[in-house]
């Protein structure tokens, strides 16, 4: 048997250890060495504040009384956690972007930063949580009593009460020390969270150890325990379907609406990815916590004397088996469960009380207090510390009032139903933009009232806060208003009855009033921010620029954030605006940022009210909204115009670049042309000059020679003339100065004449070119400048004659009429024109073969092209015909109808 004093010593040692853990974690966080403090595992373990002493002791008692129903308490949260992507992720994102400090702050902020709502939710949370805290005090006290009983003498009621008082006092000290260290609720309580994570491990290990001891130490393994379960009274318990579904729903709601769960899930969350791990790890934790509950209950019922409190089986079973070490571990587990819940709940509730009740009252009492100098922070910190002590005192009071007689499970469920009244307003707020403040206020109030009337007040027992007459016959004898049989529905279990009426009427009122109401502009802004939190994370534009003194704002901010932090904030903003010093322009954006910064300390509603005191108006008007919208529209229009202008500029630049390229190209062409022309002129001139020099020396030449030389001179002169004629011709054609003389003619005749002319002009001896014609198709009547057209034909035929390198050169001239136009193809059987030359053959002075072999200056095809352009047709090279191929296209206008 463990001496009681030793147990107290172990307990105190454990508390000192927790203090140490919290202290070290806090120190590390202050030095910025967060490391494992921000791991998803710490986050997941901190969620275990869900498992209070109610789980640790109460689940076994619950199972012993009602069979498997205890599982619903853990299956509900499992459903919420595995569906984290849908709900929890959104809550966490909203919590971070809006700097939410508590569930009351979330509701108040969503519904237009309403103080009324914040206060209502706070009161609801305090009333709903007090029994729960009492429950923890009770379980710790009872567990002490178990050891005391086994020690020397049974405890009297006075001993129980003083133990509870000591525990409550100790917890207040711990919570005040580590829970109110920093004012900014957004700055995580690393010390507390780490200590809670350690406690989570202790309670898990303790419960698993007791379970393993029971199964393998007492029941004799798995088969043994299965037999015992089958024989135990637990198997005979009824399975109540309504309670099964109802409590599953209730616990699913509780995991997000309980103030302490909201604190660890949303406020203390530092990274959304931690949710991903918690989504399976926390259900696993719950599963492990509940796996040995039934075996412990069964063995307890079997081995403990009849009438023993099943809520204490976790302690009494190891104790009666004389394993004191295990019992001590179990005691520490239960102690951990109780303390972690109380600490987190006290932090969450004190934040809510100070931000939504104390600060608004203080602001009202001090009038224009926001502008008074002096530190508000000590007021806030004091408010929080006093709240913590007051909340624990309330819990202690409840414990004394109810006399610690209630079964643990029923107290827990009363609490769950109370805080679940926030659910319609919460879900409606983050998924439905039409939800209004009025709907939320009335819905929550109705739910709160019905819950208090049908469940909370009757929980004190007949003769407690409600007279037995009222419970049996209803107020003033009106039967259909009986607390356990509203509107004549009496068949339901009291819990289900209360849950059904409170939540359904709450949701109905919330929905109906929201439907017919019209929200204020600020509500609508916040509604859009919350519902569409993933689309825009920018804050609501609550402020319009006014004549606000930055100095007043700085003064106020210093009092809440502390001098250093506030000055840094103002200096940064001033620097961002390009100003020196500490006083930036009070733009709407800055006011909004400042308000949010303050909201991290005092909550959205108070922060809004404080900024409002200085700015002079505490809400936006429709005009402001329109001004914002108008500004946006103007900016958009302006940017559209800029975009159009820039597109036009790009277009112009592109055109200029193209023109520039063309000019450069032309300049290059001109230079090339000049050098070509001088070259072409120089060659015959040189010949003429040298032969005329020979002729000027009379004795050296014979008359025959002289005649020959003169012939050469004449040939060169003719060539020169022809070159100059061609150049002139080209220049005239290029400038479009030439007038085309249209006259009737026949294509066949023109080709005949061209073949003849081309043949005559060539040297007769090597004239081996065979010409194939397409006969009848050539009979096309034309109205065009026939002389110019012949010139083109002659040029093409003589080219073939000159350049076709086949042994038996053949030129086929085929004529075709397509779509009114006439195409004449000149195709020879030579090797054709190499691909790289095809692009340039129509340019001036371009020659495919080098040298003067054929004696042309390379102007022929250029002239052809110009002529065809002038005639309205065109000439092109036709690749892939086996030899050189040119297509001359005559326009439809040149073709005479018929």
């Amino acid at each position: 048997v463990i001496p009681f004093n030793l147990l107290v010593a172990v307990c105190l040692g454990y508390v000192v250890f927790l203090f140490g853990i919290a202290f070290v974690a806090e120190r590390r966080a202050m030095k910025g060495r967060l490391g494992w403090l921000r791991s998803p595992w710490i986050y997941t373990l901190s969620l275990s504040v869900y498992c209070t002493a109610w789980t640790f002791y109460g689940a076994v008692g619950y199972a012993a009384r009602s069979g498997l129903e205890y599982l619903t308490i853990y299956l509900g949260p499992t459903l919420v956690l595995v569906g984290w992507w849908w709900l929890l992720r959104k809550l966490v994102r909203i919590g971070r972007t809006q700097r939410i400090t508590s569930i009351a702050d979330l509701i108040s902020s969503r519904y237009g930063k309403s103080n009324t709502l914040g206060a209502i939710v706070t009161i609801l949370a305090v009333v709903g949580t007090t029994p729960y805290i009492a429950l923890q005090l009770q379980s710790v006290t009872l567990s002490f009593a178990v050891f005391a009983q086994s020690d020397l003498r049974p405890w009297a009621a006075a001993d129980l009460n003083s133990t509870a008082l000591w525990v409550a006092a100790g917890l207040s000290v711990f919570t005040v020390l580590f829970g109110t260290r920093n004012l900014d609720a957004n700055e995580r309580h690393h010390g507390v969270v780490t200590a809670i994570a350690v406690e989570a491990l202790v309670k898990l290990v303790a419960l698993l150890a007791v379970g393993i001891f029971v199964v393998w130490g007492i029941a004799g393994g798995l088969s043994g325990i299965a037999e015992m379960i089958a024989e135990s009274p637990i198997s005979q318990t009824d399975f109540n379907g309504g309670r099964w579904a109802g409590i599953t729903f209730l616990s699913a709601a509780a995991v997000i609406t309980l103030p302490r769960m909201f604190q660890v899930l949303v406020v203390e969350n530092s990274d959304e990815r931690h949710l991903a791990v918690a989504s399976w790890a926390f259900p696993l934790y719950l599963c492990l916590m509940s796996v040995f509950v039934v075996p412990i209950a069964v063995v307890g019922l079997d081995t403990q004397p009849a009438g023993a409190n099943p809520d204490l089986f976790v302690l009494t079973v190891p104790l009666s088996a004389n394993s004191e070490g295990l019992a001590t571990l179990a005691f520490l587990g239960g102690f951990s469960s109780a303390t972690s819940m109380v600490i987190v709940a006290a932090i969450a509730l004190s934040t809510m009380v100070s931000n939504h009740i104390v600060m608004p009252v203080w602001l009202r009492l001090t009038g224009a207090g926001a502008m008074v100098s002096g530190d508000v922070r000590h007021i806030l910190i004091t408010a929080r510390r006093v709240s913590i002590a007051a909340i624990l005192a309330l819990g202690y009071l409840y414990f004394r009032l109810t006399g610690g007689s209630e079964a643990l499970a029923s107290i827990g469920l009363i609490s769950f139903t109370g805080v679940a009244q926030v659910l319609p307003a919460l879900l409606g707020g983050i998924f439905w933009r039409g939800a209004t403040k009025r709907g939320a206020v009335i819905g929550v109030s109705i739910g709160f009232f019905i819950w208090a009337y049908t469940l909370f007040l009757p929980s004190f027992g007949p003769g407690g806060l409600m007279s037995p007459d009222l419970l049996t016959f209803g107020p003033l004898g009106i039967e259909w208003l009986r607390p356990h049989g509203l509107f004549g529905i009496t068949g339901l279990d009291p819990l289900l009855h209360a849950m059904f009426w409170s939540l359904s009427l709450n949701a109905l009122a919330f929905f109906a009033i929201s439907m017919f109401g019209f929200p204020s502009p600020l509500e609508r802004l916040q509604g859009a921010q919350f519902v569409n939190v993933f689309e825009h994370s920018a804050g609501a534009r609550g402020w319009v620029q006014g004549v606000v003194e930055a100095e007043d704002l700085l003064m106020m901010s210093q009092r809440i954030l502390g001098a250093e932090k506030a000055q840094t904030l103002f200096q940064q903003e001033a620097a961002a605006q390009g100003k020196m010093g500490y006083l930036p322009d009070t733009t709407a954006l800055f006011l909004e940022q400042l308000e949010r910064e303050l909201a991290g300390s005092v909550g959205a509603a108070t922060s809004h009210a404080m900024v409002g005191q200085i700015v002079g108006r505490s809400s936006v008007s429709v005009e402001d909204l329109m001004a914002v919208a108008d500004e946006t529209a103007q900016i958009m229009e302006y940017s559209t115009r800029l975009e159009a202008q820039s597109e036009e500029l790009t277009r112009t630049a592109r055109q200029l670049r193209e023109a520039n390229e063309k000019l450069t190209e032309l300049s290059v062409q001109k230079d090339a042309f000049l050098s070509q022309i001088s070259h072409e002129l120089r060659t015959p001139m040189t010949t003429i000059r040298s032969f005329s020099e020979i002729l000027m020396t009379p004795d050296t030449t014979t008359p025959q020679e002289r005649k020959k030389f003169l012939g050469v001179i004449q040939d060169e002169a003719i060539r020169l003339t022809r070159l100059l004629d061609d150049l002139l011709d080209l220049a005239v054609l290029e400038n479009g100065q030439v007038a085309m003389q249209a006259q009737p003619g026949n294509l066949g005749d023109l080709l005949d004449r061209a073949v003849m002319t081309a043949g005559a002009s060539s040297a007769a001896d090597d004239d081996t070119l065979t010409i194939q014609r397409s006969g009848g198709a050539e009979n096309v009547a034309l109205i065009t400048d026939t002389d110019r057209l012949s010139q083109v034909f002659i040029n093409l035929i003589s080219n073939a004659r000159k350049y076709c390198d086949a042994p038996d050169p053949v030129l086929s001239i085929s004529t075709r009429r397509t779509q009114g136009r006439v195409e004449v193809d000149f195709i020879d059987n030579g090797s054709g024109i190499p691909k790289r030359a095809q692009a340039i053959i129509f340019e001036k002075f371009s020659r495919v073969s080098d040298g003067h072999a054929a004696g042309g200056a390379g102007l022929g095809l250029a002239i052809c092209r110009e002529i065809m352009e002038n005639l309205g047709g065109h000439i092109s090279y036709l690749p892939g015909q086996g030899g050189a191929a040119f297509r001359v296209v005559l326009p439809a206008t040149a073709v005479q109808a018929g």
Partner: protein
Amino acid sequence: VKTPQRPLFLARQSYRRRRAADASRFLPVVGVFLILLPLLRGSGGTAGLLAYLFVIWILLIVLAALLSGRLSRALSLPDTHEEDDPS
């Protein structure tokens, strides 16, 4: 005024990610169904029911764990307008 064009269809990777998110939304529905299933049963052994509940519990945990890795990676990517995007 130009409105930013969102693609009509998604790349395979983003498509898979969306489906993982859908699965995560659907998992609680499956869970509710499995948890409420015992309501339909007549009377049976408590031990059998206990075993059934723990089996589906473990199943939900395993499924959530499988999804969480994929979704966690999706969270590391830059934000997308996932609420009304193409699927």
